[in-house]
């Protein structure tokens, strides 16, 4: 797998590159700003671009804009945005146009090599990745009338995994359950929440996130 890394902090950038290289991921380029990133993606066609959300010149959301640009102009390159912000709004903004091959991961996850690799692999496989902490934040919201309270612990767990962007297969693997059991739980949860089931896993992410953010 070939990846490029865009982050304006050279130490972070190089550390991540080494972590990935040590685990068999080929890092083909590194850069410190969005323009260089777009050039690199255009010329090198990497499988995945790891993009810091804050980059020069304004240090606001250059990374998000670059990610959207890459997804629309170079669809063969998946994007994983690394963000300091634990805010569902940014994550949704990133995935809502096309929840495929794109991910929103909190920056501190880069120290957990297995989580980072998992996210890189999933976006490169076309999945959508939402950081667990963002999902937990949404699930923790207090509601006046809260249908989430009707869910069984299992259904709640599966709902969270769906919100993270996991496929049925991914959920099966994570929870050691049979596909059939998982499907039953999903139907049960959706029925209680009144969410209509979407055929596609990635569309399902949007439906769940939109429900939770409401």
């Amino acid at each position: 797998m070939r990846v490029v890394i865009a982050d304006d902090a050279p130490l972070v950038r190089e550390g991540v590159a080494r972590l990935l290289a040590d685990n068999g991921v080929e890092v083909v380029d590194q850069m410190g700003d969005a323009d260089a990133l777009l050039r690199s993606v255009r010329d090198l066609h990497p499988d995945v671009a790891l993009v810091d959300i804050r980059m020069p010149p304004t240090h606001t959301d250059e990374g998000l804009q670059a990610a959207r640009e890459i997804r629309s102009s170079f669809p063969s390159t998946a994007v994983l945005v690394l963000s300091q912000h634990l805010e569902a709004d940014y994550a949704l903004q990133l995935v809502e146009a096309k929840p495929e091959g794109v991910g929103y991961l909190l920056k501190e996850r880069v120290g957990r090599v297995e989580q980072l690799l998992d996210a890189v692999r999933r976006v490169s496989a076309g999945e959508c990745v939402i950081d667990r902490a963002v999902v937990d934040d949404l699930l923790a919201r207090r509601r006046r009338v809260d249908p989430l309270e009707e869910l069984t612990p299992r259904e709640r767990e599966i709902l969270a995994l769906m919100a993270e962007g996991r496929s049925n297969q991914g959920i099966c693997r994570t929870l050691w359950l049979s596909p059939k059991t998982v499907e039953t739980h999903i139907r049960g949860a959706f029925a209680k929440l009144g969410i209509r089931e979407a055929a596609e896993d990635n569309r399902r992410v949007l439906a769940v996130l939109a429900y939770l953010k409401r």
Partner: protein
Amino acid sequence: MASGAVTALPTRDAHRDPVLLLPLAVAAGLAVGWLGVHERIAGTRIAADLALSWALIGASLVVLERPRWRRARWLLAATPFALLGADLEWASSHALWTLGFLLEGLWAAFLVQLVVTFPEGRPWSRPARVAVVAAYMLTLGGQLVGVLVAPDTRDMLSVTSSPSLADAIDRAQATAGACLAVGVLFLALQRVRVLGLPARRAQGPLLVGTAITALADLVWLGWVIGTRARVPTLENTTRAVAMTIPVGIVIGIGWSRLRRPQTSELVVELRSEVVATMRERLARALGDPTLDVAYRLTHGRYVDADGRPIELPQQADRAVTAVSVRGEEIAALIHDPALLDEPALVESVRATAALVIENERLAAEVRSQLAEVRASRGRIVAAGDAERRRIERNLHDGAQQRLVTLSVALGLEAARADRAAADVLARAQDEVEQAIGELRELARGIHPTLLRDEGLTSAVEALARRAPLPVTVESSVQGRLPDQIELAAYFVVSEALTNVVKHASATDASVLLEREPTTLRVTVTDDGVGGARITSESGLAGLRDRLEALDATLSIDSEAGRGTNVSTVFPCGS
């Protein structure tokens, strides 16, 4: 800067008054009368000429009271002599006849100049200047050509006596004269339109007279062109109608004098509570709706009644009169220059108003200082916000970035560490993640990134999601608001929700963001125990400077047992 623009009131100058002209005019009139009778000229014609002449002389005497109208005064005084000079054509003496012929239309040219340069002696506009030149060319020039061919035995300058040529010149003159009359008519009508109210009062009657005279001339000249005959009755009528010009001037002066209130009325007017502002009272007293009052502050700056700084005008179409108390200038009246023609009126207003103005000036000074304090508070809050942003950025791009670097390093080490070391490294990794999380919370409290990037509604919704009780958010805010308002509104919601959590024992709360054309209303309501007040320790009290800098008002409705409603209104244009 300003003092140069302030004109002192013109004093009444009595030098070179044309009073001396009075006996001269009477004598000239008597001479013309004798000449007319001697040459058996019709009495009506003599009467018309004498009436017009003496009306003009009379007007020139009345105009004496307007020092700025000096040039108009001399034109008024000169016109009758041109008119009586033309009557020399009645004389049998060849020399007098020729002189009379040459002067025949000069009086009309004088009148044209008088009206289109009235009152200050400068032509109103470029077309007015053209009209003056045309009038002189038409009359003096026309007669100079005409005298060469006039079919009259008394003509001393005759080159050839050609009745047909003389007739042609006559007709050309009459046609051009008719055009000129139309031009003057238009100039007068246009002038009425552009004049300010005080000037219109003083000059309106003259302009009406001018229009009537121009129309009468058109009729007479039309008759001359059409019939080639000079009908004495028509000619006499035209001259009689021209009296509306001097009469108009006199009426104008009388009219603006009638408008002049007595000092006692002025006092009543100036102290009246009916019209609210000093500016309006002075405007009414002086009959100039465009009048402005500029209060002079101690360091020589001028401000309006609300304390807003104003510049004194430098252009010629505005006049500035200083108002002083004990030799110290306290204010300047900015007004229509036509008021300079009524020095006595302005002077009495100035004297009567000085004390009231002094009070107003002190009030204006206080308002101006208040405005400065408010502006300075605004700057302090803005500087504080900029500082908050800087700290937030430093936290994200400095400390947090270093912690991420540390986290990556720990990850790299963990991969090749033995089991025991890996455990320690994993704990260290946990600590780092926690530190990053705490730093994130801290940065969000200092300056929320989401507010900056996505605006008020998104940021308030995020606040509501994190609250430990159900909070519903309704918002009609679309697009972005000014930074300071967004930040203040966000902090109000944040502090109000903090209070709800701490004190209200509420089961739920709601936030309402209402965008109206000129305001933003932020309401936070809960269903808790009520009885809340803003104490000095409350977070809302800490927002006071921020809210006052924005002119926002915060109110709390919190009856015991009925929940609490915190409502803040921000003035906020579209």
